[in-house]
């Protein structure tokens, strides 16, 4: 009996930890919202954060988008040409890229690049008492540190995704036309016929959600850092892992909600 209780305790601890972190992230997100409806607003720090997060993430996001656009188009071109379905290559690649692959992979890239940086920066501030110093000076750390980072992630991820959509589709177009011999007009006709503006906008909406996830989880783990350099390292790793898990889980739910299927 004691063994069973101990096993249940051990097995249940990760679940409890997960619920605790989830609750803390929701509370932090609500505190950010609360800061947005009260003066002073956190706009002063927002510009530099948008610039930093955008420029930090742009190169890796574009390389990822180009790679996935090229590889995905290469694979479907091989198969579709075999079955005589070359006319839909552009549209299928477009749908897969703008609805799923590019928003999700841009979210993943930003989680690794920016989520880790936010957690490390805020974690270092936490363990060196800088966050306490802000509170001691009657300055709200959520307004000064968290809100600008969360809002910047929320704004930057759709922007990056929009640029990445273009680069990914260009990569796919290049592979289909230059390597697989598909006529440019067939690729573009198919793309135009199957991919709607709505698909692009829903992909950007998903990207905005991923931005919120990365900003909130990165900030929450950073502010929870304890025990010096080791604690900051752990917070950074957790920020990336938790962000990735949340992105992958919620991506399915969002896709099921935004793209329920049916006649197009």
């Amino acid at each position, binding site marked *: 009996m004691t063994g069973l209780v101990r096993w249940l305790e051990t097995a249940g601890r990760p679940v409890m930890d997960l619920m605790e972190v989830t609750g803390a992230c929701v509370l932090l997100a609500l505190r950010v919202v609360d800061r947005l409806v009260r003066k002073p607003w956190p706009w002063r720090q927002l510009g530099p954060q948008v610039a930093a997060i955008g420029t930090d993430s742009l190169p890796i996001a574009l390389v990822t988008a180009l790679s996935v656009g090229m590889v995905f188009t290469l694979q479907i071109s091989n198969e579709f040409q075999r079955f005589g379905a070359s006319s839909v290559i552009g549209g299928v690649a477009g749908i897969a890229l703008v609805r799923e692959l590019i928003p999700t992979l841009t979210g993943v890239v930003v989680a690794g690049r920016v989520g880790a940086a936010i957690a490390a920066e805020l974690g270092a*501030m936490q363990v*060196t*008492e*800088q966050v*306490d*110093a802000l*509170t*001691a*000076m*009657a*300055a709200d750390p959520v307004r000064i540190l968290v809100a600008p980072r969360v809002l910047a992630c929320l704004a930057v991820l759709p922007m990056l995704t929009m640029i990445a959509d273009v680069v990914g589709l260009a990569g796919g177009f290049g592979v289909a036309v230059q390597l697989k011999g598909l006529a440019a007009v067939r690729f573009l006709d198919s793309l135009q016929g199957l991919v709607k503006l709505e698909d692009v906008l829903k992909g950007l909406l998903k990207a905005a959600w991923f931005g919120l996830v990365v900003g909130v989880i990165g900030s929450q783990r950073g502010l929870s850092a304890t025990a010096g350099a080791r604690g900051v390292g752990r917070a950074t790793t957790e920020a990336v892992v938790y962000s990735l898990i949340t992105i992958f889980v919620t991506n399915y739910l969002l896709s099921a909600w935004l793209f329920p299927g049916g006649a197009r």
Partner: protein
Amino acid sequence: MPAPRIEVRDLSKRFGPKVVLDAVTCAFDPGRIGVVIGPSGCGKSTLLRLILGLVQPDAGTILFDGTDLGRAHRGTWESVRSRIGMVFQSAALFDSLTVAENVAFALVERGVREAEALARAREVLSQVGLPEAGPAQPAELSGGMQKRVAIARAIATRPDVLLFDEPTTGLDPVTSRQIEDLIVTLSRETGATSIVVSHQHSTIHRTADRITLFHHGRILGDGERDLLDTHPAIRSFLDGHTMTVPPREGGAA
């Protein structure tokens, strides 16, 4: 006799199983320097963090000019904190800002124009003997200089209360002496209530108007500075002897 600026009554705090403060009662008067001493981990720094609301007490009351901070809402806390200047043990300077921006930070937060805040920053940096340090980054300064910048930051807003958490720990004797002189001078010039947490001999002897000895979360001695010479437990601590806690009424030690 003026009413105490800060009064702590039956304050208790535990972190997990560890009791850090056990029904502590003490008071700090306006314009005087109260030095809180005791071995590491005895609850001295926690007392400062409780006064600032950085951690919440499990039981007891903290009164700031008669206001019960346990019942304070967000606005009251902001107003109380704006009257306190805190010097953290690690200095806790914002490493993304210059020294001058660090010192001016609280003023800018309170709506003072940036040029005016930076002028005040230059003034207080001169007061702590660092008139040229404004453009530097905190990481470029020595530990003693960082502590002095932290003091400048704490006094920039002309607070009514100054809290010093181990202001001279880890510093050489010359720098320690400069900082001790600074604490005394600032206290006399500004009339602020100062609470200095320390276990450094020279800091205790050179700054204390009043002395409070903490041990295992309890107060073993509390009174005027002459206790430094007369109180057995305080003398024992300052002489480096192991202290034994006398048994508590109705309970084990």
